[in-house]
């Protein structure tokens, strides 16, 4: 069980950090933005922690209302393993694309965008759904199925949520102090 929780937590952490970069992109027109993107990853990760906490609460609630608590926990682990398997493949492809992008070639980096990051961004919601369906194919009890669905549905609009939060708080939350005081957007 612990391994499954750790794998899912790491995957959620990676997704939230990359989501932070996506939500921050296109909002800062400076040329040098390493510190900005580092902060955007932290911003996404912080909201990811909130999402993980909410997911944990949903799972606790599901276990609490289940008729057979131990059976429900076993089902959660099984469904979680299947979801993690799908999401791990996606994460591996994303990380591989990042590794290829490290090659200092204009063409290689452009190809990683056209063939990799662009389509992968589009596919992200579908991957979450596929992982959910693969997990639910185990036919868990309704309470576990509902919990898994709620968690997956929470992750699908995570990037929309981050965009909304940046709109509300202003891009200054992502800027190093000096840039924030200068007003960079």
């Amino acid at each position: 069980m612990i391994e499954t929780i750790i794998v899912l937590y790491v995957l959620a952490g990676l997704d939230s950090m990359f989501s932070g970069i996506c939500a921050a992109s296109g909002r800062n027109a400076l040329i040098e933005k390493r510190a900005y993107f580092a902060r955007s990853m932290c911003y996404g990760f912080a909201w990811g922690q909130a999402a993980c906490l909410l997911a944990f609460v949903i799972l606790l609630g599901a276990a609490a209302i289940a008729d057979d608590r131990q059976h429900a926990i076993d089902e959660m682990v099984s469904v979680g393993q299947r979801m993690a398997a799908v999401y791990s493949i996606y994460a591996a492809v994303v990380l591989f694309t990042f590794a290829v992008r490290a090659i200092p070639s204009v063409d290689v980096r452009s190809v990683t965008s056209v063939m990799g990051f662009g389509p992968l961004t589009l596919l992200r919601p579908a991957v979450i759904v596929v992982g959910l369906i693969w997990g639910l194919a185990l036919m868990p009890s309704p309470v576990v199925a509902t919990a898994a669905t709620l968690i997956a549905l929470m992750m699908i609009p995570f990037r929309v949520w981050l965009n909304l939060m940046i709109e509300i708080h202003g891009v200054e939350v992502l800027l190093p102090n000096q840039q924030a005081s200068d007003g960079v957007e």
Partner: protein
Amino acid sequence: MNNDELLEISDLIVDYDVATLQRRPVDKGAVIEKLRAAGDLRAAHIVDAMPANHGVLDSDYIDRLLVRVHCEMQRLSEEFQHGRRVLELITPMLTALKNGGAPAPYRIVDIGSGTGFVIRWLAAHGNLGPDVQLIGVDLNHALMAEARRLAARERLACQFEVANAFALEQPATLFLSTGVVHHFRGEGLTEFFRQHDRANARAFAHFDFQPNLLARPGAWLFHYIRMREPLSQHDGVISARRAHSAATLLAAARQTSFTCAMYSTRVWNLPIPRVFHTLLGMRPELVPAFRDALGSRASRLEALQ
């Protein structure tokens, strides 16, 4: 629909007096009507949502919107390594200018530079030397003000001017543009290149979308997943659809005294089209030095004539 009938919102919501470069008021209703007449109801809806005062589009709102749109466009330029791509081409062009006897300083002028990403990137990373001047030119005061602010913030050695690129006090040595040439249609395209001639430029490199079967779905994919402003999404896709073919660009550019060619149209010389292709032009006497300076990249150069 004929590609010449497609309209970009950003072309319609601002207007300038060509002689004075002063901003002219834009009638919101007229823009909406024009878009509806072109059958683009979505674009009409986007403009309909823009604020207006007594029927005239709110110029402050439009300026802020255009700055946001250019910021989003910069994201794609960064993702597709456009700054480095430009540098890889203008470095041999500058070498050819120097070896071909063109007098310094070499003034690189980016036409329609917007918030100046290319010029600022070159200033930050180009290491082009003290005899190269980087200038961004645009008709929009707000975009130029933003470009200047961003350049000052990073202490970049470049300048931005609200001006006609072909009527600068100190004329350009080399003209650049990105995503600009498709805005010129028909005789306007030919006239655009003739102005390069009249301005006595030594060379030019214009980057724009390359029309092919994948351009439209590709543009849709990247503009809809990467951009937030409806205007960015709409105009990005329309730009790709309006892009000129290599044949059209060359036919127009070759009505000048420049020797012209397309550069870098395929990935690694495989039958895989690049997102952007580049129209290159230079004075005939610079061609041998340019070929030498290109080195192994000479294989990307198509027939120069």
